[in-house]
């Protein structure tokens, strides 16, 4: 059972149910005790349970203080106390999110995988909102309920905008105390709880009434069809009968030939019998009296009579032939007897008896001749009679043929006759069938369209269709009932939708001030508090611990997303003091007070595994000895350094911090540095350190260690690879483990930063698996990634030329930019100096003093420096104004308006995508409200012209650009003092926000002299504390380097002159008299 289910169940007998208030507290339930126990206690309890089969009350740990829902409080205290060793590493499942970069994917995966907390920190414009939106969407897909909170409404609305169209997210926007839905962006206003309920109710009403009407109509149609089924059944019956008759006819037709043939056969048989009877002088058999029978009998009888006569004649002839053959045989016998006698007589062979017998007989020769003649005569007669017999036989066959033909012809005629009779009958039936079919079609046509008509005009088909119709009627009635109930429910009011949305909204978004005070999801709402599976906080760095706790107690897991305005955050204890003995960063010329970190920062410092904070450093000292710093050493500690020589390597020096034993200093001695002689290479030194101290002294550049797994190795990446492979050397630390160190090109390091550890590799072949490698890294590198943090440092959406500049100036190289991205030399960054800088670069090395163009409108002595009509309209706007700079901004906008649209920017900002015409979103950021107001006043007359030129211009101070970006941003730095170092705006955060809002182009307006003076001022300034002052100074100093021509990406930077006449092509926006003269003189 999930915790949420448990809370819903609320049974009185449930083990975790809360105790009655007037009673002594019940003993805490097992689940509560177990969850509150430490990992060691849990293991011990489970082991005991395995052995005993159960646990006994006295074996349970003492219950923790506080109610059970204080999970976050306990967790927070535990983590902030540094007890993170018990936290198991969270393995994140890689996600398939091609729209996000690697870091963002990792952040989303970790946020989804964490069982308790996940911290995501990112530089501005590194895609934090995208990550938040993806986390919310994925969690919602998993069926989790998400509470999205941010100190500012704009952050919440930005995430909601990114989630628009994600069907898995049912989002609700809760209004803050001072918010009104009409002031929200349309996408957020639609999600306001009341508005959402109203819209849903409206849609449901429409759908319900539509459904009801359709259901009523369908029922009416079905009702009208009730009386059609009986006629249909009758018609089907009739049709069936007709079909049967047709079938019978067809059968009869098929049987005609056989029947007629049979009759004919029967008649032949009777005729045969008649013939036989006639032969026996018996009476002839009876025959049928149908015309067919009579005719066929007569014909056959006649033919047979003729045949009988022929048979008789033939018989006579056969008898004659027989006789003649006998005569002929007798003659031939006599001839045969006389032939030898005749031969002997004729031959004169008197010595033979034959001659003597012939002699005795007489004239044998004559006798033989007579016999020959007689035989010849008989033969002739025989031939004649046989010929006659053959003729008779042929005639007899002809008679038989004739009889057969006659019989066949008569049969066929009879068949045809009978077929004709059936044709008549069939035609009558068909006519009747057509009538029935017509009636059928007419009746079927009257059935409602939604009814499935009978498939055929049969009783079964009608019955089937009727059954289907009855089911349809039942369904229609059911639907009508449902529609009526649904309509009644919807018409009863939106209350049920309110309750349902409260129960089923899986993303509740609210500014932090609204959570707990709303009437739907707060604890005071009817039905008890709504709890959440996931708390998602944007800009968590701005929330105090109490605020975070009050939010977190309602959620099971917590994902806190914070913005980092600088490249690294000083830690308050992760790795000791932050002061270093190495080369200080540019702009950090003095010691600063340690900052007071917020809750997020404190959690971050405890949970984040940041290799760039490892204390190790390598540097060549003045005498070229190689120094390995193992621990950070403060300036105070440096006084207590004692040096020792290694016994077996006297040329290696150990520097040990040995504080004096006193009440004030409780620290123990520690080895701080190891110094190697000049001839020792870094590889040898690193090997020595690992061999002797079991520490891997790495200098990492990445703020987050990343593990990469391949088939043959595991790689712990600690720095981006920008160098060519031949500059990387490998240090063998242990079998199968290599440290890859990046060197400078010539082999000699240019500075300590050049000696960076790119990665540590573990060979799988040597037996290293992920768990073992991670354990090794935790032991020897001090890097234990708990899997609960992610750092976003890849800029998103910037034009290629802008990101490197911002990375350098704003974040001192904090952005991680893909080295493959081509740097465009086109001026993505322009600086418009007001007043103008000297043209020759060498003259810019020393910037002039400030021009003193800033005006405090509240100062009555300076009123004359601003046109009176503008001064009056500035009203109560706070801060300073710089009139000339404001005019320069206006002129720059006019210049932009005159540029071809395709040349303005590569992309159009999100604000400008909606219009039919593609507008270029242009933001004008002024560091002071008064300056923003002044620019707005100057632009008032130009707004229509600018809009017609395709510029969508928004003028505001930095706070107005929270969660808002533009294609082109113009930043009016405003400050221009004659001699004093000044701060810029509210602080570095506002300055960073102003500088990072543009995606394609950045136009800066400022007084170079004032900037130069600010870059040289080392102390705190105006309202800024030490840290803020230093950060601002760092940004300004790096900008000044570009002004002086020495920027790291100087070719991306373009110093532009401001011409007062520029942009005057519009013929509008005339510069007030006197002001132009002043500007000219300044320029």
């Amino acid at each position: 059972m999930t915790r949420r289910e448990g809370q819903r169940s609320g049974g009185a007998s449930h083990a975790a149910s809360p105790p009655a208030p007037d009673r002594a507290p019940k003993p805490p339930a097992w689940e509560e005790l177990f969850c509150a126990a430490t990992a060691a206690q849990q293991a011990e309890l489970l082991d005991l349970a395995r052995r005993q089969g159960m646990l006994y009350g006295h074996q349970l740990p003492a219950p923790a203080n506080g109610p059970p829902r204080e999970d976050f409080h306990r967790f927070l205290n535990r983590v902030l106390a540094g007890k993170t060793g018990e936290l198991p590493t969270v393995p994140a499942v890689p996600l398939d999110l091609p729209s996000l970069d690697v870091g963002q994917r990792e952040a989303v995966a970790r946020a989804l995988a964490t069982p308790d907390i996940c911290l995501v920190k990112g530089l501005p414009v590194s895609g934090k909102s995208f990550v938040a939106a993806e986390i919310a969407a994925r969690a919602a897909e998993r069926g989790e309920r998400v509470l999205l909170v941010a100190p500012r409404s704009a952050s919440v609305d930005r995430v909601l905008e990114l989630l628009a169209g994600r069907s898995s997210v049912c989002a609700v926007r809760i209004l803050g105390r001072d918010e009104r839905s009409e002031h929200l962006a349309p996408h957020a206003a639609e999600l306001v709880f009341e508005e959402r309920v109203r819209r849903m109710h409206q849609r449901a009403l429409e759908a319900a009434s539509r459904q009801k009407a359709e259901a009523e109509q369908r029922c009416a149609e079905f009702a009208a069809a009730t009386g059609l089924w009986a006629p249909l059944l009758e018609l089907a019956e009739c049709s069936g009968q007709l079909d049967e008759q047709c079938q019978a006819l067809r059968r009869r037709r098929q049987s005609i030939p056989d029947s007629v043939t049979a009759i004919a056969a029967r008649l032949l048989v009777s005729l045969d019998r008649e013939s036989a009877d006639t032969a026996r002088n018996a009476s002839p058999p009876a025959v049928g009296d149908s015309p067919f029978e009579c005719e066929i009998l007569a014909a056959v009888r006649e033919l047979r009579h003729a045949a009988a006569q022929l048979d008789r004649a033939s018989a006579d002839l056969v008898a004659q032939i027989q006789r003649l053959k006998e005569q002929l045989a007798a003659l031939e016998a006599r001839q045969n007897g006389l032939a030898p006698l005749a031969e002997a007589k004729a031959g004169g062979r008197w010595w033979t008896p034959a001659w003597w017998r012939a002699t005795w007989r007489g004239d044998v020769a004559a006798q033989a001749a007579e016999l020959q003649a007689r035989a010849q005569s008989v033969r002739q007669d025989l031939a004649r009679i046989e010929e006659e017999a053959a003729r008779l036989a042929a005639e007899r066959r002809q008679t038989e043929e004739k009889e057969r033909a006659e019989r066949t012809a008569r049969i066929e005629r009879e068949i045809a006759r009978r077929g004709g009779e059936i044709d008549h009958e069939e035609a009558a039936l068909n006519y009747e069938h057509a009538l029935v079919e017509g009636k059928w079609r007419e009746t079927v046509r009257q059935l409602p369209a939604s009814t499935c008509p009978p498939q055929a005009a049969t009783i079964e088909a009608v019955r089937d269709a009727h059954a289907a119709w009855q089911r349809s009627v039942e369904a229609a009635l059911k639907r009508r009932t449902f529609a009526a109930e649904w309509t009644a429910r919807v018409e009863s009011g939106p209350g049920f939708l309110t309750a349902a949305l409260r129960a089923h909204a899986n993303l509740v978004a609210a500014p932090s001030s609204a959570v707990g005070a709303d009437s739907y999801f707060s604890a005071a709402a009817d039905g008890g508090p709504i709890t959440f599976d996931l708390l998602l906080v944007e800009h968590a760095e701005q929330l105090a611990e109490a605020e975070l706790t009050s939010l977190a107690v309602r959620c099971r897991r917590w994902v806190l997303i914070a913005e980092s305005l600088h490249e690294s955050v000083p830690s308050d204890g992760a790795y000791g003091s932050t002061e270093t003995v190495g080369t200080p960063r540019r702009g950090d010329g003095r010691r600063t007070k340690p900052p007071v970190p917020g809750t997020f920062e404190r959690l971050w410092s405890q949970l984040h595994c940041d290799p760039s904070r490892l204390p190790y450093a390598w540097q060549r000292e003045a005498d070229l000895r190689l120094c390995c710093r193992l621990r950070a050493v403060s300036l105070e500690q440096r006084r207590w350094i004692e040096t020792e020589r290694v016994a077996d390597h006297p040329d290696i020096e150990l520097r040990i911090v040995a504080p004096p034993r006193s009440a004030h200093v409780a620290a123990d001695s520690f080895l701080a540095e190891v110094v190697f002689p000049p001839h020792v290479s870094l590889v040898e030194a690193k090997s020595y350190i690992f061999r002797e101290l079991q520490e891997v002294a790495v200098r990492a550049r990445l703020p987050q260690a990343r593990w990469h797994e391949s088939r043959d190795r595991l790689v712990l990446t600690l720095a981006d690879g920008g160098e060519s492979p031949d500059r990387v050397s490998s240090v063998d630390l242990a079998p199968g483990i290599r440290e890859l160190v990046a060197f400078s090109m010539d082999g000699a390091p240019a500075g300590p930063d050049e000696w960076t550890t790119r990665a540590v590799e573990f060979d799988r072949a040597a037996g290293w698996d992920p768990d073992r490698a991670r354990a090794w890294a935790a032991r020897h590198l001090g890097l234990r990634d708990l899997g609960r943090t992610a750092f976003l440092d890849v800029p998103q959406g910037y034009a290629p030329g802008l990101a490197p500049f911002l990375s350098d100036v704003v974040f001192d190289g904090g952005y991680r930019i893909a080295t493959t991205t081509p740097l465009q030399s086109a001026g993505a960054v322009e600086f418009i100096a007001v007043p103008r800088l000297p043209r020759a670069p060498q003259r810019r090395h020393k910037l002039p003093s400030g021009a003193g163009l800033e005006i405090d409108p509240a100062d009555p002595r300076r009123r004359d420096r601003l046109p009176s009509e503008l001064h009056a309209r500035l009203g109560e706007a706070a801060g300073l104004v710089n009139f000339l700079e404001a005019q320069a901004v206006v002129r720059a906008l006019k210049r932009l308006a005159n540029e071809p649209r395709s040349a303005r920017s590569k992309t159009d900002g999100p604000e400008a995508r909606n219009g039919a015409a593609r507008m270029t979103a242009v933001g004008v950021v002024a560091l002071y409200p008064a300056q923003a107001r002044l620019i707005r006043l100057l632009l008032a007359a130009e707004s229509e012209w600018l809009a017609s030129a395709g510029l969508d211009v928004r003028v505001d101070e930095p706070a107005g650009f929270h969660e808002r970006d533009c294609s082109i941003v113009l930043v009016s730095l405003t400050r221009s003092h004659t001699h004093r170092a000044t701060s810029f705006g509210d602080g570095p955060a506002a300055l960073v926000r102003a500088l990072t809002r543009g995606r394609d182009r950045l136009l800066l307006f400022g007084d170079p002299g004032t900037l130069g003076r600010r870059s040289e001022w080392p102390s705190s300034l105006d309202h800024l504390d030490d840290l803020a002052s230093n950060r601002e100074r760092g940004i300004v100093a790096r900008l000044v380097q570009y002004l002086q021509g020495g920027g790291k990406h100087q070719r991306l930077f373009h110093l532009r002159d401001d011409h007062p006449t520029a942009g005057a092509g519009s013929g509008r926006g005339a510069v007030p008299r006197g002001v132009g003269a002043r500007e000219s003189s300044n320029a």
Partner: protein
Amino acid sequence: MTAAGLPLPNSPRLAGWCRQLLARRPSGLWIGTVLVRRIEVLAKVTRTRQVDPLAQCILAALDLEQTSPGHPDSPSPASRSGPAVRLADLESCLGLDSSFLRSLIGSLERDALVVPVNRDDATPARALTLLGATTLAQGELCRTVYERRSFSFLERSTPPRRLRFTSLLGEEWVTPIASPSSPCEVAPFDPCVLDTCLQESPVWKQRHGFPQDVFAIVPLEGGDSGPPLAPEFWRRVPVDRPGQMLVVLSRESEAVHAFAVRPQDGVLQTAGPCFSLGDGDWKNMYPELDSDPPAEAWQRAWVEWGQGRGLPVAELEACPIQRAGLYVRAEVSKRLMGRLRSARSEGWKGDNWLAAGTGPLRACARLEIATN
């Protein structure tokens, strides 16, 4: 069980408790310590809850669309496998917002009332499960969940050992007989006892207050299969919390009712009995309640009572004791009566109760003192 019983109260407090129960017209009163075993286990429970109206409408709409004769996937009335309703159809039927509907259906899916179905046209679709259809018909969702539940058993402290389930009210008045600092040897609890209770008839369960919705106990090791998914090992661990409770037992007609004493301040909880035993039950569990302690026991109680008030043992032992109903009558000499009067004890006021017996449960009777 080797735990010692809880200390008995002094006479005034005992008198106060007994007086409170006299309004119930008991036929007998006892005081003493009962042993309780509270067994917390992971149980499989049948949970029934009403489906909210909108969810009911969604189920009805799904059923309607699914069983509609015109529906392409229309199932046979007996089968629920295969048919599916497109979310778009459902959306247009109800006029609800897409994301809201998905979220709502998601919750129905988690309750296994609705199941996603892959249609041929790859559009997202859902179908009603058999459980969903049943829920729609009944209007309530009945499903199996895992819950940690606590079951109380009375244990007879003296041989023969007996365990009996009881529906114990006021578990908070149970004093653990052992703690981490002073562990105590306890007899192991036999899980079969709990299984036996589960096998009992519904009538038995109703009579004894055994939860009817519990139908199985999840064993510590294996032996359990879903649904729902088998829980983790640590959730299955049974916990036995042996404890004892000071109670006053009131025998009323054929039943015995126990009233707990709050250990913090010794207040008797008379609002209702913490457990009750029927006729056969209490005779089996506590047979000593069926018979009055012997006269010697009352004599000893009387002597102890008198000793507490500084009366001479010899004179106390000489007093004849008569026992009747809720009363015990002691006939004392005039001299002893005089001493009682001079001591101005409550004995003289006639509001004294004696607890007689040697076991964990002792019979209580109101003491009447008269001169012979």
